[in-house]
């Protein structure tokens, strides 16, 4: 009987842990034009993180998250993998050499091999993501112990996260900037612990990814 109750308790905790999420505030600003109303056809898109700032760099997994979001939303859109693209174009998209303005595209395309590679890839849009997720505050304490009768924790911890990202869309064919979308999200996570710690995580970065991904999908897809 006791084992059944213990089992149900553990199952309940696992369920609670998977359901409980902290709240996230999100603000999305969008300014886009020259939308491809018919979609982008068989052309491709690349999403790249900005990494030239000394104090932060846009996370690779955030870029992957946005790419996956767009692919899931419209599988006809060909989104190139960031690392594959950077390696294929080495050394022109390293933090030191990556183009910062659309004026730099012409200089890049003046090199025959680079221009040919872009043509092979049928690259139509280049989307730069600049920003990062940071921890804004943390407090609380937790003590864990192990004894002959079992192990457990007691205490309470809380921390806040803030994500601030901006996507800049370049039309590679016309060599112009065609839009900017920004997403700012913040949230507070909690971890109460009475024997078992129960994390209540605010999906701050995930919400920023979904917000930017949705807007980019609307811009690129003919289905939306």
């Amino acid at each position: 009987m006791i084992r059944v109750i213990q089992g149900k308790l553990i199952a309940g905790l696992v369920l609670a842990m998977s359901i409980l999420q902290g709240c996230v505030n999100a603000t999305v600003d969008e300014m886009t034009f020259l939308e491809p109303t018919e979609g982008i056809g068989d052309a491709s898109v690349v999403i790249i993180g900005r990494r030239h700032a000394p104090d932060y760099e846009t996370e690779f997994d955030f870029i992957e998250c946005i790419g996956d979001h767009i692919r899931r939303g419209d599988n006809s859109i060909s989104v190139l993998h960031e690392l594959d693209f950077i390696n294929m174009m080495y050394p022109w998209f390293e933090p030191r050499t990556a183009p910062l303005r659309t004026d730099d595209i012409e200089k890049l395309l003046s090199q025959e091999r680079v221009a040919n590679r872009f043509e092979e890839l049928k690259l139509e849009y280049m989307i730069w993501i600049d920003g990062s997720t940071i921890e804004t505050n943390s407090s609380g304490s937790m003590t864990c112990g192990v004894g002959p009768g079992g192990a457990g924790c007691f205490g309470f911890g809380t921390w806040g996260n803030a994500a601030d990202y901006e996507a800049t869309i370049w039309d590679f064919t016309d060599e112009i900037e065609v839009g900017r979308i920004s997403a700012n999200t913040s949230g507070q996570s909690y971890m109460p612990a009475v024997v078992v710690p129960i994390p209540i995580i605010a999906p701050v970065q995930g919400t920023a990814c979904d917000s930017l991904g949705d807007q980019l999908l609307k811009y690129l897809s003919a289905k939306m």
Partner: protein
Amino acid sequence: MLLLSACGAREVVVQGNFPKPLMDPLPLTLGVIYTDEFAQHEIFDEAAGRAESDWLVKTGDAQVEFWNTLLNGMFQEVVQIKDSQTLEAYKNTVDAVIIPAVADLQYTIPLHTNIKIYEIWMKYRFKMVSLEDVHGNENGDLSIKPDQYFADWTLTAYGKTPTAFLQSDEEAVNLAAVVALRDAGANFATSFSRVPDIAAWMAEGLQPPPAEATDIQRLEND
């Protein structure tokens, strides 16, 4: 025993995949000499306190692999000058010889700076010399006359990687070193033709300036 071993020296043998550069190769046949010091480059950093560990970062193999890949993509042909035999074999076919060296390497981990970033900073020194000024000794070693280099310049490179969940210090330092090597390559590839001595040499039809008569010096001591 497991806890005690955590206080021992931490070793990183830098490893990575390095892409070939996408650029129109310069119409040059370049010789390259990797000195033993360069090919076996490593830094040892002794722990400053009991809470820290000694660090040994070996970059030599990765340096050779990286610069071979980069130079082969940047120039029409690249040959490695290892000894008197290879020196003799490539006589009259090589436009110039480049000798890279790591002049300085510094790293930081979050323990040092309290910033959640692993960083590597490198300073390279490159020298270029015409093949005629490289001499082979009887024992096969190579030597060069001091002041015969027609180009001598430095460049810096920087690599950083943020802390990530389940990423060990060693993995993070390795990744920072790979990023620094890639940055060095990007810097070299985009600035090579703009180095004043190189630009002058190329403008003068690959003729180095007349050499001054000086004593011969062993390359390893240079």
